[in-house]
């Protein structure tokens, strides 16, 4: 290959760095790989992505080790802001959760649009269900549905994996069990495993993502300007359009629905 670059004479403006803590779903789905280069072009900000569980992402925000967080756990986000760690939370997008399961469908829930009923059926049948049980956004959502359904899940059929989404999907496949999964991860991984969609479209399954810059008063070292630029860009017309388009070419549908107000 060539060793010499064409022209190194003109010095490009210095690239600034921005640290983003986010959940694994945004990185693993490939969304950020599409958005960030465009964001860099527009603002000259290089975003460093630290993809962890929602709990850990929020903890990193509270410690002041990043500049901005992009997570999905409304209650925790509100608390984050209320406690003064972050400011200006903005809605960015939502995706939705699915209940997936094996073809055999012992709980007979396929095709239903009622998540509560489906969870009840699973519990009644004691059909194997893998829970992430890791306090992630998905896990919190699942716990809430059980609560609404008035069930305290326990027993051999209720498997608490304590792992990320991809690993939980893998385990559910091995065990031919039901599980709750976000659409983005499901679409990205569905070809690898043998589980299909049982329940979708229920309002309770919606999963909103919010972006929150760190509070500049509490964390003067954090790049508030950059974080705000990032939040603004994500919620701008351009950012929203890109989010809406993402995944259409590959899966024939959007993975994330933009919903910035």
């Amino acid at each position, binding site marked *: 290959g060539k060793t010499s670059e064409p022209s190194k004479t003109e010095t490009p403006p210095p690239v600034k760095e921005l640290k983003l803590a986010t959940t694994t779903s945004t990185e693993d789905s490939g969304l950020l790989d599409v958005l960030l280069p465009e964001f860099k072009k527009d603002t000259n900000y290089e975003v460093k992505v630290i993809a962890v569980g929602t709990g850990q992402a929020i903890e990193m925000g509270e410690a002041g080790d990043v500049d901005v967080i992009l997570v999905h756990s409304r209650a925790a986000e509100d608390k984050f802001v209320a406690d003064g760690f972050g400011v200006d939370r903005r809605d960015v997008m939502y995706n939705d959760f699915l209940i997936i399961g094996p073809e055999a469908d012992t709980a007979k829930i396929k095709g239903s649009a009622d998540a509560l009923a489906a969870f009840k059926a699973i519990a009644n049948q004691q059909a194997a269900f893998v829970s992430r049980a890791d306090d992630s956004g998905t896990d919190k959502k699942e716990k809430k549905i059980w609560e609404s359904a008035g069930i305290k899940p326990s027993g051999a059929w209720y498997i*608490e994996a304590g792992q990320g989404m991809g690993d939980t999907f893998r385990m559910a496949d*091995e065990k031919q069990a039901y599980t709750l999964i976000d659409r983005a991860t499901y679409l990205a991984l569905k070809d690898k495993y043998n589980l299909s969609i049982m329940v979708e479209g229920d309002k309770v399954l919606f999963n909103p993502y919010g972006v929150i810059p760190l509070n500049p008063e509490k964390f003067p070292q954090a790049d508030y300007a950059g974080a705000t630029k990032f939040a603004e860009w994500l919620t701008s017309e351009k950012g929203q359009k890109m989010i809406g388009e993402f995944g259409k070419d590959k899966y024939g549908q959007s993975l994330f629905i933009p919903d910035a107000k």
Partner: protein
Amino acid sequence: MEIFVQGIKEGVCLIWQLDKEIFQVTALSLQVSLTALILSALIGVPAGAALALKDIPGKRFFLNIIYTLMGLPPVLAGLFVYLLLTYRGPLGQYQLLFTPTAMIIAQILLAAPIICGLTARAVMALNQEVYDTAVTLGASQRQASRAIIREARIGIVAALSTALGRVIAEVGAVMLVGGNIRWSTRVLTTSIVLETRMGNFSTAIAIGIILLTLSFIINTAILMLEKRSFSYDNTIKIT
């Protein structure tokens, strides 16, 4: 750093309250890692000695492979076992995935090369005299190898300590093939990861301290066993 103090306090509390879950998790950690360690020793020590002693072609290459496998990434070892045990895999029919057995198999993949490699090195540090003396007194090759292993004991005990450290601290492989299932395949290390991911740093540290205490106790036991077999302290005395 007060989070460490808090972690230690919390660790003591967990043990003090005889927390049922932490006991079960600790017991499983012990069971899996000790079983893996013992089985790895049964494979690794003779294999290492043989590798050091036998004049097989490509011996250096083999040794090199073993040293390389000492650095087998746990995730890769886990992946390998996973692909063997998955229901679509060659051993799928035995339904071993997400069981302690699977975790033991994966940990053997990690521990056996360490024991084998370090045993080989300990044996290689010995002199010809050991072998000559044994066989000239009528030892068979097998008996002489046993004499050699006995002389290399210090190095072999180090191998065991190292391998123990590797498996008891390891998380990538057991997470993948065990699945970190509560009440079933959750061990200390996977708990630490889980708590860390949930942002519960002090709980993570508490569990870590339980793990270190455990491994301190096992190491003490190993060293006691070794010590008992010597009357004379033959470490170098410097003046």
